[in-house]
């Protein structure tokens, strides 16, 4: 579970879905091999995915990893 002291990872999945002709959460979920609930959790910032899933999501949108996920290190 995310804690305040840990680095924060945000994402632009919702925005990128919108720019891909309103791609549905279900379609993205099938494409990257997860459940729709996980896409919902990702968009809500309730879950940080594994590196493999992050790459799959970036590939599904045809963009680089850093265009989907942003790392915010609070310690810096």
């Amino acid at each position, binding site marked *: 579970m995310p804690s305040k002291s840990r680095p924060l990872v945000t994402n632009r999945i919702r925005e990128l879905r919108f720019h891909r002709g309103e791609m549905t959460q279900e379609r993205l979920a*099938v494409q990257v*091999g*997860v459940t729709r609930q996980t896409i919902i*959790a990702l968009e809500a910032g*309730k879950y940080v*995915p594994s590196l493999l899933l992050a790459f799959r999501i970036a590939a599904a949108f045809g963009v680089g990893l850093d265009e989907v996920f942003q790392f915010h290190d609070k310690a810096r």
Partner: protein
Amino acid sequence: MMSAVQKQAWFNLIVVAVAAVTIISLYPWLGARAIGGAGILGLCGLGALFHWRHGRRVVIDERDELINRRAMVWAYGVVWVVFIIAVLIAPRLFGDSVPIAVVQNSVWVAFMILLATQSIVALVQYRLGAPDAE
């Protein structure tokens, strides 16, 4: 919309509750034999049906596996703590000889605690947010 793990957790929780109520309600009439009501726990095996795959849709993914794993760790932890407490309390309750029925029934009680804790922890994680996949 619930995931397969969430559905199974709710199902297990209901089965454990029904088994517990059955045992408690039969106890005045059957005594120690009321533990036969624990046979209802066998219904938990039907939980596997929630993992039935429909077409290309994924039923369980990495997040579900993480939630399940953490729930199991919690469940085994709780069962272990309860076991230690029971071992410490038993001599005070029964003296030098613990009835064999208590020992036998404790297996069923431990199983019920395991299932209930696992289900509750899984459901709480779905509600609050899963552990990150690090």
